[in-house]
């Protein structure tokens, strides 16, 4: 049995196809990533899988249960960390967890034991009795991860788990995610628009753009599509250099933009000395700088969609909205 099986899932908002006929499978125990810019349809996909939004077409099974016909079974098998905070600020961390545990029908013994366990996992034990309103953003996100795990879900959904967090907190969250995947064998599905997050965490990544999956594979395989490393060279005059580099046998692909020449090759670090030698042969140009880049998922994204991940205005207005809410609550 698969953890998740999605077939031709579609969701329309008025005329706009937010999710357009997508299909994918998630294996048990896997960390699976949906990578794409804001508004690509990641969150809508997740919302359909967690039974919050009804699809317009297609079908999906979560832990073997149909998302339309077996909602309660699906809900019992999954834990969710939403993109926007979904905690009660007027309760303490422990009370939020206890509320969740009771809602999922855990008995008293299990509740006590599990609250301790999950708080330990996210290192919040000393803040258990503090009102969530006094938590920092990072602490809130950690508590939400803990809450998502309370009822021993088979699959944990994380919608942009590190959005708006500082680098250190992000690193910590990544460690928790890896730890719980290893320790509790929880299957994890996460959405992100951070390339390095998908690269670091996910065993397989689906690149999603305009509601469609444009590529799906392991990060390593996705990157190998690009044909190895990229060496960027600034040289004057660049036209002359371009002509010379074009003829080198180990260069797989060559591009020129804004006076910079990009060479694709294998094992780029070993090619730099070769380039230095060519420079010394005085072939009518001079190399000013050499920069070696290992391909990232950013490059993969660029390759498949023809653009870099775009930061839309949507995210900005979301942030404003959240700030307003906080102010209103106080």
């Amino acid at each position, binding site marked *: 049995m698969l953890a998740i099986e999605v077939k031709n899932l579609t969701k329309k908002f008025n005329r706009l196809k937010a999710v357009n006929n997508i299909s994918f499978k998630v294996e048990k125990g896997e960390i699976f990533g949906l990578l794409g810019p804001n508004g690509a349809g990641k969150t809508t996909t997740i919302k359909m899988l967690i039974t919050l939004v009804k699809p317009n077409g297609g079908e999906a099974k979560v832990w073997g249960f149909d998302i339309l016909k077996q909602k309660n079974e699906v809900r019992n098998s999954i834990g969710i960390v939403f993109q926007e905070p979904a*905690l009660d600020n007027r309760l303490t961390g422990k009370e939020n967890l206890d*509320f969740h545990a*009771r809602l999922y029908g855990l008995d008293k013994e299990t509740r006590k034991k599990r609250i301790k366990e999950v708080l330990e996992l996210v290192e919040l034990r000393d803040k258990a009795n503090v009102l969530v309103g006094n938590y920092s953003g990072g602490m809130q996100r950690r508590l939400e991860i803990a809450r998502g795990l309370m009822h021993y879900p088979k699959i944990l959904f994380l919608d942009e788990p590190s959005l708006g967090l500082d680098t250190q907190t992000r690193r910590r969250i990544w460690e928790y995610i890896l730890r719980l995947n290893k320790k509790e064998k929880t299957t994890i599905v996460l959405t992100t628009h951070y390339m390095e997050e998908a690269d670091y965490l996910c065993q397989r990544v689906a690149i999603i753009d305009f509601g469609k999956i444009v590529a799906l594979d392991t990060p390593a395989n996705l990157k190998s599509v690009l044909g190895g490393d990229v060496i960027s060279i600034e040289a004057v005059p660049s036209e002359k250099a371009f002509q010379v580099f074009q003829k080198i046998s180990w260069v797989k692909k060559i591009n020129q933009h804004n006076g910079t020449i990009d060479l694709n090759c294998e094992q780029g670090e070993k090619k730099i000395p070769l380039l230095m030698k060519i420079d010394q042969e005085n072939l009518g140009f001079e190399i000013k700088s050499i920069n070696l880049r290992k391909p990232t998922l950013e490059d993969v994204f660029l390759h498949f969609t023809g653009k870099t991940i775009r930061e839309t205005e949507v995210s900005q207005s979301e942030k404003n909205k959240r700030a307003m809410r906080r102010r209103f609550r106080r």
Partner: protein
Amino acid sequence: MRAKNLQVIYVMWLREMKIFLRAKSRWISNLALPFFFLFTMAFGFRRFRIAGVFHGMSYGNFLVPGIIGMTMLFSSMFTGISILWDRDFGFLKEIMVAPVKRSAVILGRVSGGVTNNLIQGISILLSSFLIGFRINSLLSIFWALLFMVVISVGFNGLSVAIASKMRDPQAFPLIMHFFTYPAFLFSGALFPIADLPFWLRSFSYLDPLTYGVDGLRGVLVGFSQFPPILDLSVLLIFSLAMVILGSWLFSRTEV
């Protein structure tokens, strides 16, 4: 499954209670309004006699059941507001993805609201003894509590129903005032509805709170327009209908 639903009702109730006990401002605002009404009106109209109605009853004795009814009505708004807050702060999603019956969630919220209302109703009743309010017998208190429960179940249900159809927490009080003020003024909480001209009185007959106030008055001071059992029946039907409507609308909300 049944035990699990009870657990859900309990946990929703428990949450309402915790929040209520911590929100001191809500305590003050909840109790201040009825007390202002009670004290100013009871003393202000102390010397008024309305022909043929009060039978030597003081206005204060006439008024107390009305103020209790009013409190049940106005405080029920909070249940709807708390749903809208949950939606606005994202917490509603947490509830909506849980494997629980929507009706159990609503019953839990309503029972939380009813508990709050009862606390207020009892404090008003007790403090009204200070201003000379007298009841028929101790048994009256039991019947009065029963009436308070059915009135507040009904209006809590209405509050949930309206909140489920709304998105904007700021517009909610405005919409609710559209229901609460007419319901309050037509209910006969402040004056006997028998004195209203017929065309106005017909609004009173449509107002569920009329039967609430009348019933409370009947059981507490022995003065009512209808037999209290009729009042109780009307209220039972009203509250049942509102809880069903509220649960139904709530189960259809998307977050």
